[in-house]
C-alpha cells in the first residue's frame, strides 16, 4: 500500500480523488441536508447562470463559494506551512506559531480602525505587510539568541509577538464596538459566508506566491543539506530562500485576508504528507497542496454537524484538533528536552 503511495502519479490521483470526495461532502452536508440530485441540479443552474433563485439554489451557491474558498485557503495555508518548516529547519513552524497570522490580523484591525478600507482587495496588502513585519521580527529575535533560530526560540518568539498583538488589538476593539462585531467573526477563521469573488481581490498575491513556492522545490532540496553547502552554492541560493520566505508569508497573508487566521493546518499537513512521500521537498509541496484543502474541507464539514443547528467555524475546529497534534510533535521531538 505505502509502496503504491510512494509512486507520485498514483498518490496524486488518489489525493485528487479524496479531495473531490471532500468537496462533495462539503456541498451535501449541512444544517439542511440535500439529496444528490438536488445538489447537482442546483449547482448546474447556478454555474450556468440559469438559476430561478430558489432556496435550494441559494444554499448550494453558498456551499459552492465556501468549498471554493476552502480549497484556496487550504492550498495556501498548507504550502505556507511546508515552506516555513523548511526555511527555518523547524518541525514546529506554521504561520500561526511564527506570528505571521497575528501580524496580518493586527494590520487588518488597524486598517478597519484608521483607514477607509473595507474591501478584502484593499486590506490584503495590509495583511501581507503585517505578516512580513511579524515574520521578520520573530526570525530576527530568534536569530539573535546565542544558539541561533532554534525551534523553541522561534515558537516562543511567535507566541510572545502574538500575545502582544492580541493586547493591541484588544485596545483598539474595546473602544470601537462596531469593529469588534466585525472582528469577532473574522478572528475565528471561517470560510463560510465569504463570497467567492473575494478570491479575485487576493488573486495577484496568491498566484505569484503560489508560483514562487511551488517552483522552489529543487532549491529547497539543495538547502536542506545544510548552511555550509548553501554558502558554497552562493548568493543565488540566499536570494532564492528570501523569495521563498516572501512567498510563504504571502500565501499566509492571502489566506488570512480571505478567511481569517486558521491555525495548525500549516503545521500538521506537511508532517502528514512526509509520512507518505519521504523527504523530497517537491513531493511534500505537491502533497501539501492536496492534503491542505482536504483537511480544511473535512474539518469545516465536521464543524457543521457537531453542534446542530449552529456551526463551529473551521478555524476553531482546526485549533481544537491541531493543538493535540502540536503536543504530540513536541513530545516526540528529540530536540526539546
Amino acid at each position, binding site marked *: 500500500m505505502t509502496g503504491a503511495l510512494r509512486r507520485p502519479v498514483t498518490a496524486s490521483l488518489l489525493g485528487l480523488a479524496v479531495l473531490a470526495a471532500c468537496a462533495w461532502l462539503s456541498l451535501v452536508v449541512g444544517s439542511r441536508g440535500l439529496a444528490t440530485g438536488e445538489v447537482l441540479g442546483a449547482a448546474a443552474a447556478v454555474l450556468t447562470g440559469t438559476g430561478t433563485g430558489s432556496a435550494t439554489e441559494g444554499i448550494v451557491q453558498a456551499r459552492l463559494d465556501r468549498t471554493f474558498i476552502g480549497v484556496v485557503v487550504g492550498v495556501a495555508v498548507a504550502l505556507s506551512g511546508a515552506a516555513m518548516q523548511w526555511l527555518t529547519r523547524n518541525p514546529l513552524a506554521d504561520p500561526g506559531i511564527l506570528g505571521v497570522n497575528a501580524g496580518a490580523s493586527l494590520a487588518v484591525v488597524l486598517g478597519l480602525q484608521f483607514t477607509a478600507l473595507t474591501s478584502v482587495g484593499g486590506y490584503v496588502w495590509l495583511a501581507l505587510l503585517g505578516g512580513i513585519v511579524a515574520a521578520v521580527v520573530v526570525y530576527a529575535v530568534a536569530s539573535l539568541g546565542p544558539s541561533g533560530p532554534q525551534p523553541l526560540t522561534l515558537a*516562543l518568539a511567535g*507566541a510572545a509577538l502574538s500575545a502582544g498583538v492580541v*493586547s493591541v488589538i484588544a485596545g483598539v476593539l474595546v473602544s470601537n464596538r462596531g469593529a*469588534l462585531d466585525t472582528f469577532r467573526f473574522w478572528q475565528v477563521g471561517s470560510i463560510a459566508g465569504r463570497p467567492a469573488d473575494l478570491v479575485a481581490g487576493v488573486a495577484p498575491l496568491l498566484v505569484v506566491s503560489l508560483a514562487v513556492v511551488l517552483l522552489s522545490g529543487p532549491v529547497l532540496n539543495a538547502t536542506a543539506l545544510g548552511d555550509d553547502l548553501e554558502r558554497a552554492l552562493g548568493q543565488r541560493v540566499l536570494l532564492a530562500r528570501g523569495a521563498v520566505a516572501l512567498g510563504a508569508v504571502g500565501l499566509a497573508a492571502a489566506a488570512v485576508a480571505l478567511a481569517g487566521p486558521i491555525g495548525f493546518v500549516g503545521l500538521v499537513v506537511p508532517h502528514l504528507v512526509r509520512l507518505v512521500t519521504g523527504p523530497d521537498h517537491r513531493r511534500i509541496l505537491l502533497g501539501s497542496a492536496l492534503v491542505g484543502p482536504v483537511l480544511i474541507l473535512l474539518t469545516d464539514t465536521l464543524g457543521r454537524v457537531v453542534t446542530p443547528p449552529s456551526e463551529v467555524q473551521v478555524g476553531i475546529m482546526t485549533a481544537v484538533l491541531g493543538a493535540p497534534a502540536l503536543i504530540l510533535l*513536541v513530545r516526540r521531538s528529540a530536540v526539546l528536552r
Partner: protein
Amino acid sequence: MTIHTHTGTVAAPQLAPAAPSAVAVAVLRQAGRARRRRTAYVIGTLGLAWLAAFVVRVLLGDYTITVPDFWRIVTGTEIPGASFILMESTLPRAVVGTLAGLALGASGATFQTMARNPLASPDVLGITMGASAAAVFTLVVLGGSSGAVTVAALLGAGAVALALVTLSGTGPGGAPYRMILVGVALAAMLASVVHWVLLQADVYLAHEAMVWLTGTLSSATWPEIWRLGVVVAFTLPALLLVARQLQVVELGDDLAQGLGEPPAHVRTRAVALVVVLTAVTTSVCGPIAFVAFLAGQIARQLLGGRSSVAAAALVGAVVVVAADHVAAYAVPDVNLPVGVVTGVLGAPVLLWLLAAGRTTRQESS
C-alpha cells in the same frame, strides 16, 4: 560595601588558603548579611513604590481628591461627586489591582523558580487561559453567577495544570521546554474556545467579555474584591512559606531530605497554591497579560539575579496599579483595560529575553 552576592562567593576560595576557615566563614557570613540587607532594601523600596502608585491611582486623575477629603470619605462623610468617584472607581480599582498584582507576581516567581526557567509563568503556560476559558464559558453560555464563575475558573486552571504535568511527562521540576511548548499549544486551543464563546453572545455581552478577557480592574465589585482579598490573605503567606522550602528543594534532593518530606509534595503544594491564586484573580479581573511573567523577572534584576517570591509579589502590585493608571488616562476619553498596557509592555520584554538568550540560562537560587 565592596562585597556583593556574586563576588562574595568568588572571593571566599581566594582568601581561604591564607587563613583557612575563620576568614572564609567571615566572608561568607558578610556576603549573606549583604544579601539579606539588599533584599530588605529592595523590598522596602518596592513597598514605597507601591504606596506611591496606590496614592496616585486613588487621588489623581481626571478628578483630584485631596488627602483630607480622602479620609473624610473613607470614614463615612458624603462629598458629592468625589465620594462616588473614590468609592466606585479609583479606590476599588487600586485595591483590586494591588491584590491581583500580589497574587500574579507571587505565582509567576514561584513557577519560574520551580522550573528554573523565566518562561514558565502561569500566563505563558496557559494556566491563566484555562481559568479564563472556563470562566467565559460559564458566564456567557451557562449564564452562571459570579460564584459559579470563580469555581469554573478554579476547575479550568486546575485542569490545565494537570494536563501540563501529564502531557509534558515530567513534574514542574524537569523538562521545562517541553512543558512550555505544551502550555503554548494548550493556550492556543483554549483561545479558540474563547473565540467561539464570544460568537455565541450578543454584541454587548461580547464587548463586556472582550474587556474582561483583556484583563480589567474596572468590573470588580466590592463583594468580589473582599473574596479576592480573603483568598490572597490566606494563600499568599502559605505560598511564601512553601517558596522557602522550594528553594531548599531546588538545591538538590540530598539537602531536601532535611525538610522531612519528599520534594514532590512541596512542589505539588506550590502548584496547588499557584492554581488557586491565579484562578481566583482571573475570575475577578480576567487574565491580565504578562504580569506573572514580568514580576518575577523584574524582581530578579533588582535583586541581582536571585529570585524572591515576596519581592516579585510587590513588583506585581506596583506594575498592575501603575499600568492601570496609565491605561485609564493614556488615551483621552478611552478607558482602556489594564491588560492592554501590561501586554504591550510585556511582549517586548519577553522578546528581548529570547533575543538575549536569557531563557536558556539555568536559574541560580
